[in-house]
C-alpha cells in the first residue's frame, strides 16, 4: 500500500511537476478550443453541401466521410507531420496538429449534421420559404436549429471524442497534458505524473460523459 502511494500518488513529486502539468492542461484546452469550433463549422458546411442534393457532389462527400472514418487519426497526423516537410511546407506544430484533427473531425461532424438536416421534415422548409424567407435564411433560422437539436447527443458525444483525440498530439511532441505527463514521468522515475494526468482528464471529461449518457438513453428509448 505504501509502495502504491509512493509511486502513484506521490505528493512531493506532484508538487514539483504541477506547473508543468498545468501548462499541458492549458495547451490541451487551447487545442480543443481551436479544433472543436472549426470542426463544428466545417461539419455544418459539409452537411449543407450534402443537403444541396447534387448527385456527383454527394458521392464525393460520401467518399470523403468514409475515407476519414476508415483512416486512423494517428496515421493521418503522422502522415501530415512527416509528409508536409517533403512538400516544402513547414507549418508550425500547432497548425500541423490542428489540421490533422480538423480533417478527421470535420467528416464526423459533417456526418452527424447530415443526419440532423435529413431529420427535419420537408414541410418546415416549404413553410419557411412561403413566409418569404430566402433559402439561406430558411437554412439558418429554421432548418439548422431543429437539426442541431435532433442530433445534440451525437454532437456532444463527438465533441468528447475530439477532446480525447488531442492526446494523440503527444506522439509528435506537442506539449499538451499527456506529453508533459510522460516527460515528467521519465524525469522523476515515478508514475505519479501519468496518474495525475489521467485523473485530470477524468475530472475534465466526466461531466461530458454523464451528459452524453443521459441524452443518449433518451434518444435510444425514443427510437
Amino acid at each position: 500500500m505504501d509502495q502504491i502511494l509512493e509511486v502513484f500518488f506521490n505528493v512531493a513529486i506532484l508538487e514539483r511537476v504541477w506547473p508543468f502539468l498545468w501548462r499541458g492542461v492549458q495547451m490541451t484546452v487551447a487545442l480543443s478550443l481551436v479544433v472543436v469550433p472549426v470542426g463544428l463549422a466545417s461539419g455544418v458546411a459539409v452537411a449543407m453541401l450534402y443537403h444541396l442534393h447534387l448527385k456527383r457532389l454527394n458521392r464525393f462527400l460520401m467518399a470523403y466521410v468514409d475515407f476519414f472514418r476508415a483512416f486512423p487519426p494517428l496515421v493521418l497526423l503522422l502522415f501530415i507531420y512527416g509528409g508536409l516537410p517533403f512538400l516544402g511546407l513547414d507549418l508550425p506544430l500547432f497548425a500541423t496538429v490542428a489540421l490533422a484533427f480538423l480533417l478527421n473531425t470535420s467528416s464526423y461532424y459533417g456526418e452527424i449534421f447530415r443526419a440532423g438536416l435529413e431529420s427535419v421534415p420537408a414541410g418546415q422548409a416549404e413553410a419557411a420559404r412561403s413566409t418569404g424567407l430566402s433559402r439561406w435564411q430558411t437554412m439558418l433560422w429554421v432548418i439548422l436549429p431543429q437539426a442541431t437539436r435532433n442530433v445534440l447527443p451525437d454532437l456532444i458525444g463527438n465533441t468528447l471524442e475530439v477532446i480525447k483525440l488531442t492526446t494523440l498530439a503527444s506522439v509528435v511532441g506537442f506539449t499538451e497534458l499527456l506529453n508533459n505527463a510522460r516527460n515528467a514521468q521519465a524525469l522523476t522515475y515515478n508514475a505519479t505524473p501519468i496518474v495525475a494526468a489521467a485523473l485530470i482528464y477524468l475530472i475534465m471529461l466526466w461531466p461530458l460523459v454523464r451528459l452524453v449518457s443521459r441524452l443518449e438513453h433518451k434518444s435510444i428509448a425514443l427510437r
Partner: protein
Amino acid sequence: MPASASSSPRFPGTPSRVELQRLVFSFFNADVAARYWPDIVYGMWVTTYLGLAVVGAGLAAGLALAMARSFQLKPASFLIVVFADVFRALPPLVVIIVLFFAFPYVGLAMSAFTATWLALSLVLAAFAEEIFWAGILAVPKGQTEAARSTGMSRLQTLSYVIIPQAVRLTIPPLTNRMIAITKGTALGSVVAVHEIIYYASSGASEAGNPTPLTLGAAAYLVIFLPVVVLSRWIETRFAWKR
C-alpha cells in the same frame, strides 16, 4: 499541390514536371516501397489480429456487464456505471500509457501488445455496456413480463427474449464504436507494438523518405474501408422500423 505555387516560376499553381517527380520520389518511391512492404504486410496481420481480439473481448465484456446490470443489484450496478464512466472519459492513449508505463512500478509489467489489447478492450467494453444497456431499457417491459409468465427463468428471459431485440436496436451505434476503437490499434505504435504504423514510421525515418507512411496509410484503408462500407450496409439492413 500548395508547395508548387511558391516555387513554380512559369505557371503559378500548376506543378512543374520536376516538382511532380519530386512528389513521386518522396511519397511513391518504388525502391523504398519494395524494401518495406513485407514489414507493412506483417504489420497488417498484427493490426487485424489485435483488432479482432479487442472486438471479441470488448463486446463480450460489455454484454456481460449490461446483463449483470439488468439484474438491478444496487452495488453491482453502481460499480458497473463507475467502470463505464471512467473508461468512456479517459482517452484510450492515456489508458495504454498508464497500463504500460505506470503499472510496472508496482510490479505489474505487461507486454506492449497486452497493454494495448487490454486498454482498448476496457474502453470498448465500457461503451458497449452503455449501448447494450440502453438497448435493454428500450425493449418494452411487457416482453419481460410475458416471457416470465411462460415459465422462463430471468436468465432465459434475458438471453432469449430481451437481448435479441436489444441487440438489433444497438447495431448502428455499436458498429460505429467498434470501428472507432479498432482504429485505435494504431495507438499501440506509441508503446512499440509491431503493427502497421510502427513499421511505417520507423521505415520512414530509416529510409529518410515518407513512402513507408504512404504504404501504411494504404494498408489501413485496405483493412478499414471494407469495414466502413459494410457498416453502412449493416446500418440500413438493421435499421429498426416500426
